[in-house]
C-alpha cells in the first residue's frame, strides 16, 4: 500500500454552501473560522480535508449526521463542485474536467451506491442495472449479458423482470450495488448503503459486501454513521466532525490511540479485542528474546486468540503472516490486558 500512487487524492478541500463560495474562499488570506463564515452567509460542510485513497483499499468515512461525510463523497464524485483545494483522480484534477470528460469518467471509472437506492421506479431490475451501460451507448445484447452477469453476482438471478417496488429493501440495494458495478468501475463510492436496512439484513449485506470486494479488489470510499460498521469493513477509517477529518487511521489505531476526546467517545464502548489483530499489536523483534514454539496468525483478532493468551505460559508469542513466515512478536501480557482489562 505504501509508496503506491493514490487513486483519489484530496488536497485542502473546502466545500462551502452560500452565494458565491469560490470567490469568497479565494478572497480570504488565511482559513476563516466558522463564525466569520456564518456572518458572511456561508456554511462550511467540508473544511480543509487532505486525504488519499490508495488502490484496492476500503476507506470508510465515519461521522454523525451533518459532519460533512456525504458532502465529501459528492465532492470526490463531483456531484458537487468544491470551493477550494484540489481533488485528483488517477492524477487528474477532476475540478478541471469538462462536462463531457466528467461524464466519460463516470461512465468508465466510477460507480456509486445510494442510501435510498436511487432506483428508477419505471424500470425492471434488468433495466436499472443496464441503465449505465445504456447511457454509454453499449449495444443491446452486450448490455443484457453484462447486466445478467452482475445481477447473478449480487444474488438476484431470477428477479431480472421485477420492478423495484416488488422487491424488499435489501433486494433493492442489491440492485443498486449491481448497477454501480455494471460498468466495472475502478472506484466504488458507497453512501451509507446499508443505513436504511433492518439490522439483520444490514449485517448480511456487510458480509456480502466483503465477499464481493474480496473478489473485485476495487478502490472504495464507504460512508457510514455507524462506528461498528466502520470497524468491520474498513482498511482505514476517516472520522469527520464539523467538516474536518479529525483522525484517519487503521481501525486498530483508532481504537488504541484515539486522536481526540471526540474519537475516544466512539471507541469507549467498543470491545477492543474484537478489533485489534495480533499483527497490529506485535513488535518487530525484541532484543535478546527469541520467540519459539507455535505461532499465532497476524490476522486473528485478540478476541479470537483469547484462549491461547490465557492458556499459554510463554511471555512472548511469535506472530506469523499469511505465508507462514514469522513476522513479529506479541507480548502476551499486553495482549491479555487488552482482552480482559488492565489489572488494578
Amino acid at each position, binding site marked *: 500500500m505504501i509508496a503506491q500512487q493514490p487513486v483519489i487524492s484530496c488536497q485542502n478541500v473546502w466545500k462551502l454552501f452560500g452565494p458565491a463560495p469560490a470567490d469568497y474562499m479565494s478572497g480570504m488570506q488565511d482559513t476563516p473560522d466558522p463564525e466569520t463564515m456564518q456572518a458572511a452567509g456561508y456554511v462550511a460542510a467540508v473544511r480543509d480535508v487532505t486525504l488519499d485513497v490508495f488502490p484496492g483499499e476500503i476507506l470508510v468515512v465515519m461521522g454523525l449526521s451533518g459532519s460533512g461525510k456525504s458532502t465529501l463523497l*459528492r465532492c470526490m*464524485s463531483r*456531484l458537487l463542485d468544491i470551493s477550494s483545494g484540489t481533488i485528483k483522480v488517477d492524477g487528474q484534477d477532476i475540478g478541471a474536467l469538462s462536462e463531457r470528460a466528467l*461524464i*466519460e469518467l*463516470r*461512465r*468508465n471509472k*466510477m*460507480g*456509486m451506491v*445510494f*442510501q*435510498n*437506492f*436511487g*432506483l*428508477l*421506479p*419505471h*424500470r*425492471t431490475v434488468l433495466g436499472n442495472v443496464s*441503465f*449505465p451501460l445504456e*447511457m*454509454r451507448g453499449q449495444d443491446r445484447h452486450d448490455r443484457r449479458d453484462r447486466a445478467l452477469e452482475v445481477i447473478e453476482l449480487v444474488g438476484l438471478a431470477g428477479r431480472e*423482470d*421485477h*420492478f423495484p*417496488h*416488488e422487491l424488499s429493501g435489501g433486494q433493492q440495494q442489491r440492485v*443498486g450495488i449491481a*448497477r*454501480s458495478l455494471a*460498468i466495472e468501475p475502478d472506484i466504488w*463510492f458507497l453512501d451509507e448503503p446499508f443505513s436504511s436496512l433492518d439490522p439483520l439484513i444490514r449485517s448480511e449485506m456487510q458480509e456480502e459486501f466483503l465477499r464481493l470486494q474480496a473478489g473485485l479488489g476495487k478502490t472504495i470510499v464507504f460512508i457510514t454513521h455507524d462506528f461498528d460498521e466502520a470497524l468491520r469493513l474498513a482498511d482505514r477509517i476517516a472520522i469527520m466532525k464539523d467538516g474536518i477529518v479529525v483522525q484517519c487511521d487503521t481501525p486498530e489505531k483508532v481504537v488504541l490511540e484515539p486522536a481526540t476526546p471526540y474519537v475516544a467517545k466512539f471507541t469507549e464502548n467498543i470491545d477492543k479485542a474484537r478489533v485489534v489483530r495480533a499483527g497490529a499489536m506485535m513488535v518487530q523483534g525484541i532484543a535478546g528474546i527469541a520467540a519459539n514454539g507455535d505461532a499465532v496468525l497476524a490476522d486473528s483478532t485478540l478476541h479470537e486468540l483469547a484462549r491461547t493468551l490465557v492458556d499459554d505460559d510463554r511471555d512472548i508469542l511469535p506472530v506469523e503472516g499469511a505465508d507462514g513466515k514469522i513476522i513479529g512478536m506479541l507480548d502476551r501480557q499486553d495482549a491479555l490486558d487488552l482482552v480482559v482489562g488492565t489489572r488494578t
Partner: protein
Amino acid sequence: MNALLAYVAQPAARNQRLSIVVILVAAAITMALGRGMLPDSLIRPPEWMILPLADWINAFFDFLRDDMGMLAVTRSIAGGVETLLDVTANLLYGKNRWPWLGPIPWSVVAITAAVIGYGLGGTKLAVLAGATFLWVALMGQWQWAMETLSVIVVAAPVSVLLGLLVGISAWRSRRLAAVLNPILNIAQSLPHFAYMIPVVVFIGVGPKAGAIVTIIFSVPPMIRMTLLGLQKVPDEVIESGKMCGATGWQLLLRTRLPTARTDILIGVNQVIMQCLAMVVLASFIGMPGLGQKLLQLLQALRIGQSIEIGLTIVLLAITLDRFTRAWALRQPVHVPRGMPWHERYRLSLVWLVLVILAGGLSQVFPLLAEIGRGQGFSVGAAIDVVMDRVIVAIYPVTDWLRWFLIVWVFIPIRDAFLWMPFAAVLSLLAAVGYAVGGRRSAVICVAFFGYIAISGWWDRTMITVYTVVVSVVIAALLAFPTAIWATGSDARSRRVLLICDSMQTFPSFIYLIPMIMLFGVNDVAVVGAVVLFAAIPLVRYTIEGLRGVPLGLVEAAGMSGATRRQIRRHVLWPIALPTIMVGVNQAVMFSLFMVIIAAFIGTQDLGQEMQRALSSADVGKGLVLGLAVATIGLMVDHLIMKWASTVRPPS
C-alpha cells in the same frame, strides 16, 4: 417564524398591531353607522376614481387583432384544431369529413371502454365504463355525448402536451417559473366566462371555439403538476442518473420525467376533468353536445330529460376520473418468464375478438350501431310526471322555504352589503389583513378591493360577495356536522370521502339541476346549488383534518385525563384547523365559480354582467369583470394561506 417569535416576544409590538386593528375596525363601524353624514365619495367610489379599464383593454385587443394581425394567427391555429376535430367528429358521430370511416358503432365504443376499464382497474371499472356507454346509447343521447367527447379527445392531449412543454421550461428556468406563478394563480381563479369572451372575439363560436377555450382553460393545472412532479424527483435518483453517466437530455427524458410519472398523470387527470367541465359550459359559445342540450332543457324546465343528461355527464365524469386516476397510480408489474404471447396479450386479443364480433353484428342489427333519438329508452316524460307530483307534494315546504329565505335572509343581508359605504368595507378588510398578516396583508387586501372600486363594478361585486358569504356560511353549517358524524368510524369516513371525491368531479353545471327542480328559477336555487357545491370541499377537508391528527397526540391527551369533549376542543380542532381552512378556501373558490355560472338562471351580480359581455363579445368588460372575481378569490386565498402558515408549525 422569526417574525412570529418576535411578535410573541414583544408585547409592545403586539399591542401596537392590536391597536391598529382596533382603530381600523372602529373606523369601519363609525362609517357604517354614520352613513347618513358621510360624503358621497366615501359611500361609493366617485366618478373620477373609476378608470375606463374596459376601454383600454379593448383598445389593446383591437390593436392585437387588427394592427398586429393576430386574427390571422389565431384563425390559422383554429384551423389546425378544426382539422383534428373533424377527424374525431367523423370517427365518433360520422360527420362527413376525412377519413370517412365513422361513425363507429356504439357497441364497439362501449366494448373498447369496458376493456380499457378492465385493464386499468379490473371488473369494477369495466362495468362502470361499459354501463356508462350503454346508458348513453340506450337513452338516445349518443350523438350529443359523442359531440362532447370528440372535443375532449382533441383538447385534452393538446393541453397535456402544452402543459408538459411549459412545465418543463418553467422547471429549467427559475425566472420563467417566477413569472409564471402569479399568472397561473390568476388564471386558475378567473371564472370560465372570462376565458370565453376573448375566444369569441378571436375565433368565433362553435365547436372549434369550444375546443380552444377548453384547451386554454385546462392547461394551467398541467403546468403546475409537471413542475411539481419534476421538482419532487428525489435527489438520489438524479445523482444516480448522473453517476451512471447520463447527459442533460438523458437525465430529463429517462430519469426525471419517468420518475415524475405519477404527478404528471395526476395532471392529466385534472386536465381531463377541467376539459369536461369547460366543454359542458362552452355551450354558451355555441358548442354543441351534452352541455347545449342540458342548457336548452333547463331553460325549458324539462326536468326529466335534464336529469337524464345530467346523469350522463356525471357518469362520464366518474368514468374519466377513475380511468385516469387508475392509470396514474398504476405500478408496473413484471411478466413471469416463459409466458406465451397469447396469454401475455390476452386482453388485447379479447378486445379484438369482441370488437370484430360487435362490428359484424351491427352490420346485421343496425340497433347495435346506432340508436336514434326516437328509438331511445328515454323516460324523461315519465320522470317529468313523477317529479311534478313530488314537486307539488313538497310545494308547501319549498315555497315556504323560498319565501322565508328570500324575505328574511337574502334580501336583508344583500341590502346590508349594499348599504355598507365602500370606504368602510376597505377599512374593515385592512383590519382583517392587518390582524392576519401585518402591514403587507393589509396592503394586499386593500389593493385587491381597491381594484374593484376603480373598476366601477362595486355594487355588482357586493352582490356576488353576499351570495358567496351566505352560501359558504350555510354550507359550513351543513358540512361540519356531516364531517363530524363521518369521522365517527373509519368505514363511514371512507365512504363519505368517496362520495365527496366523486361529486367533486361533476361539472358545476350539474348542481343546478336538482335546485331548479326544487325551487324553480330564482335566487334560492342559485344559493342552493352554490351551497351544495361548496359543502363538498368543506366536508372533505374537515374529515381529512380531523383524521389527520396523529393518534399519539389523542392518546397522550387521553392519558392526561382529558374527556372526549376536551380532546375534541383542545387537541383535534386546533390541529385540524389549518386543513379545514384549506377547505374553506376551496369552498370560497368553488362558490365564486358557481355563482358566476348560475347567472344564466337570473342573478344580478357580476355573472349577469359577464353574460352580457359574452353576448356582446366585449372583451374589455369581460376581463375587467373576470379580474374582479379573481381578486376576491385571490384575497381570500392570501388571507387563509397566510393565517395557516402562522398557525401551522414549520415542518
